[in-house]
């Protein structure tokens, strides 16, 4: 039999699969029936992953810049150039842009390389880095910097809220679990501005006006408070800081809620009652590429906490990671202010522990995320190391071109490599043993399936080689030694080893002495502390359409992430599927409802001009019932659209999915 177990590495769901090989090539994939997360299911991406894993579009040789082009080189030479280049600069001028797709072992070593060898804290995750917002809220509130619930417990939830995430497209198998729960009788409620598939499959759909998610969540909380539906005993025994959150209720103008959210007051109240009376409840949201902002997530967490739906079976405040090892990236300390397991860099005891293990000092100077540095014209960044860029579009290309030195490390061809001075190939994730941590904190082992091409190094060996040239001596005999070191330094990973992981379907952190088999969900009984309400704002400005700009334009990034994804472009069938919309609307589109289309006098695929106070663009319209009158939706996936129009609105876009731009739409 030729079926090797592993994990799908497209999204953060972490579905189990089997890979078949022939002559050291990947030829097929099949779902793992007994996997606790996916239970025999895969989505369109997962079912076609063998197309990616067999792509010829790989980087196979080290390359260095010469006479305006690239010339093939050796690891020895290319690594020496990289180290020499970086050594020229002070730490504040060096940056590392890590990939949320790299394995835990590779993430960890890159983090160690940045800090131990090049003394910089300028390190951050590429793509989807908004996940941090969720982790901040949950860590401050409960001490757990990850999903509080568990995918396996979705079918135990009586109430499920899906807030602002097109989950059947982004993480389809989690969407499937929610759908199954709904079919078994759970009260599933979707809160979104667009009618997504999960909205259609939900029992209730609250179609909120763009930008008013926070207000809607607050209104839910206020109902629970006004009607005295919260669990007073739970609140006093297990929580602190409710008084401060309650303060926000007084500021909510009751009579305006329905007008500003676009949802009838009675519908909000009914959902609040559903939530309060359910024995168990979960919420799913995304703070990814353009998920919700930190403040809105704070409101959602507070709502579930006051309803007493945290730390019990079938409960969970659940951020959803869009990329396969995004959670693992944060676990491995890929952030300017973090070490592994969300340990604070500024905690001197922690820094000392790392310095002792590394036999090298952890730098104390403040670092910054790479995209912050690239967007800041006065930044000192001069040299950048990028690993496996995930997108087909390179943002901040102008700033990147101005850097003195760029190194690209990756397994697959990527447009980012065009900006590099040194390109270093690494093996793909099926060519080495590796672990990945999915969105529910499940650390999973993926066994090597095929040998790397002749002479090609896996990432961990390359990083050790770079460290060696930089004067350090890292002695890892095998990749599992790296995990052993992670376990020594990281309380939440303390009990993890490759040997333990390879026996089953992974373990959810914390894995420690108290929980040797891992921890399925956050448990109030084990918390050993009071849970705090998150400090949220008390200003509820909702973007309002104005006379000259009567439409609220939402910019959807997450939904279209896969259209322009670098890996997706190396497949045949998923690429065709993701491009199907693009083929109908090659220049992108703005989606409006039939009533608005009629008012403007246009039909599907007719061109229009979208005008905002800051710019304008010409696109085709897509007419659909999925948006409400006077709201419009533009997908963020067409290069042209991004550079022509949306980049002029970067401030707005930074705010996440709630970002809305008032616009006027005209027939041309």
């Amino acid at each position, binding site marked *: *039999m*030729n*079926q090797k*177990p592993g994990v799908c590495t497209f999204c953060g769901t972490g579905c*189990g699969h*089997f890979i*078949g090989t022939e002559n050291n090539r990947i*030829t*097929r*994939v*099949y*779902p*793992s*029936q*007994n*996997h606790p997360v996916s239970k*025999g*299911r*895969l*989505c*369109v991406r*997962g*079912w*076609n992953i*063998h*197309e990616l894993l*067999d*792509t*010829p*579009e*790989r980087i196979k040789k080290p390359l260095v810049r010469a006479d305006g082009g690239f010339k093939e080189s050796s690891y020895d030479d290319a690594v020496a150039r990289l180290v020499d280049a970086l050594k020229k600069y002070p730490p504040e001028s060096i940056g590392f842009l890590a990939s949320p797709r790299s394995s835990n072992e590779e993430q960890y070593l890159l983090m160690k390389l940045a800090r131990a060898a090049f003394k910089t804290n300028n390190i951050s995750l590429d793509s989807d880095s908004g996940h941090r917002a969720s982790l901040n809220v949950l860590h401050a509130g409960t001490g757990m910097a990850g999903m509080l619930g568990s995918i396996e417990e979705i079918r135990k939830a009586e109430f499920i809220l899906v807030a602002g995430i097109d989950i*059947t497209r982004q993480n*389809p*198998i989690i*969407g*499937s679990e929610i*759908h*199954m729960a709904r*079919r078994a009788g759970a009260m599933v409620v979707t809160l979104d501005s667009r009618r997504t*598939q999960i909205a*259609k*499959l939900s029992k209730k759909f609250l179609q909120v006006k763009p930008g008013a998610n926070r207000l809607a969540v607050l209104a839910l909380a206020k109902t629970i408070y006004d009607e005295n539906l919260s669990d007073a005993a739970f609140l006093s025994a297990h929580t602190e800081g409710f008084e401060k959150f309650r303060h926000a209720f007084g500021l909510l103008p009751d009579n305006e809620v329905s007008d500003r959210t676009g949802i009838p007051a009675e519908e909000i109240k009914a959902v609040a009652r559903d939530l309060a009376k359910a024995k168990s409840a979960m919420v799913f949201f995304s703070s990814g590429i353009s998920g919700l902002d930190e403040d809105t997530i704070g409101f959602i967490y507070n709502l579930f906490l006051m309803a007493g739906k945290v730390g019990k079976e079938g409960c969970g405040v659940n951020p959803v990671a869009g990329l396969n090892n995004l959670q693992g990236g944060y676990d491995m300390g890929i952030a300017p202010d973090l070490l592994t397991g969300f340990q604070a860099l500024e905690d001197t005891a922690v820094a000392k522990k790392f310095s002792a293990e590394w036999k090298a000092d952890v730098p104390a100077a403040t670092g910054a995320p790479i995209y912050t540095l690239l967007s800041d014209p006065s930044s000192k960044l001069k040299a950048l190391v990028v690993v496996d860029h995930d997108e087909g579009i390179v943002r901040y290309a102008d700033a990147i071109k101005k850097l003195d030195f760029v190194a690209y490390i990756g397994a697959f061809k990527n447009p980012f490599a065009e900006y590099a001075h040194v390109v270093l190939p690494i093996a793909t994730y099926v060519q080495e043993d590796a672990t990945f941590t999915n969105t529910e904190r499940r650390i999973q082992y993926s066994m090597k399936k095929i040998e790397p091409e002749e002479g090609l190094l896996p990432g961990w060996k390359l990083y050790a080689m770079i460290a060696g040239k930089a004067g350090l001596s890292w002695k890892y005999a095998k990749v599992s030694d790296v995990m052993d070191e992670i376990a020594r330094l990281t309380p939440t990973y303390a009990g993890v080893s490759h040997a333990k992981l390879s*026996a089953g379907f992974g373990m959810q952190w914390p894995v420690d002495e108290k929980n040797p088999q891992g921890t399925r969900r956050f448990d109030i009984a084990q918390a050993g502390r009071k849970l705090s309400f998150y400090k949220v704002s008390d200003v509820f400005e909702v973007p309002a359409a104005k006379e000259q700009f009567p439409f609220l334009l939402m910019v959807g990034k997450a939904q279209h992430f896969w259209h322009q994804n670098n890996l997706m472009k190396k497949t*045949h*069938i998923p690429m*065709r*599927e993701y*491009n*199907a919309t693009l*083929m*109908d609307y090659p220049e992108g589109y703005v989606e409006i409802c039939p009533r608005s289309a009629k008012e403007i006098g246009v039909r599907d695929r007719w061109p229009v001009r979208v005008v905002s106070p800051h710019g304008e663009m010409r696109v085709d319209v897509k007419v659909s019932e999925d948006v409400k009158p006077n709201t419009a939706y533009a997908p963020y996936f067409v290069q042209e659209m991004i550079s022509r129009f949306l980049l002029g609105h970067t401030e707005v876009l930074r705010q996440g999915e709630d970002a809305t731009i008032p616009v006027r739409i005209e027939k041309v």
Partner: protein
Amino acid sequence: MTMFLIKKADVGKIAQELGREYQVYGPMIEKGSGQTFFDRAEDVAEINLSAPIPSNPPKSVVFPQMERILSYEYDRTKNTVKMEPDYEVTPKALVGLRPCDLAGMLCLDRFFMGQEFVDEVYLNHRKKMFIVTNTCVTPFKQCFCVCTDSGPAAGEGYDLNLTDLGKEYLVEVGSEKGAALAAKLSLAPANDSHLALKKEKVDQSIAMFEDIAVDSKAWVSRVMNRVTTGFVKDDVWEYIGDQCFECGACTFVCPSCSCFNIADVNNTDCAGCADRLRTWDSCSYEGYSRMAGGHNPRKPVEDRRNKRFFCKLSYSQMKKYLRPGCVGCGRCAWVCPGDIGLPNVVTYVRREITG
């Protein structure tokens, strides 16, 4: 019909003997996960005739998930093209095929070889094949072959058919190749009492469906007429279509589904060289039926769902397959994220459930 007996302890000899001439495939249990696969046996002793129905359909032997069917080289300077068809010709033996899966393969035969054009790639996989089927003396949770006339015992298309009679297997011969193998193994002859015992076993198995095959209750015959005549209300299809995640799984796991895609991939090791790949495809994908110029005859997802169930459940498709396209294996119900496997769809259509 000639019949023989083989002791349970000796049944492995069939695969062993076949292993001399054929590449042998059969059901095997993956140790780490307990999942059954129908796969190539590196060691024929791995084949486990009492394993449950394999999670994957055996169609991958004749119709692999991804297969290089051609390579070509274009020489720019001379303006010439060299083409090499890449056929897999090794003779293959399938040992322990479940009856539903054999029925599925016969559907594929009729699709790939029984129409105007014969598919050479498929033909080469299929032509020298030896098939040993295995009667299901107990059904499994998701089975409903009784409703689709494809099990629990095979009727035609095998070289040898095995039925577990308790201490021994009844070996029914279905072809000359089968007879030759039985002779080579010097099997003991069986008589009518053994055949009667087999019939009893099969009847018992059918009776067990009520209690064991509880996952999939499908009253297929009741909906065939309605699906054929198009007499299914739109909102039933819409209700079904809304639940489709467009993953393609139902097609991939179906022993009788034949959708495929062709893609040419540059071979980066050689300028001007490319491989032609054939891969599984699915009618549930929007891009599958999309034609150049943006016209898509089956754009809304409920129409694409409708196509699959039409293919599985209509009389018009029976003309192609000479039987219903669905062979009752129940796999699509296992893998569907939307919970609209064929049995549920049959129920929705039959009872006009729309929400």
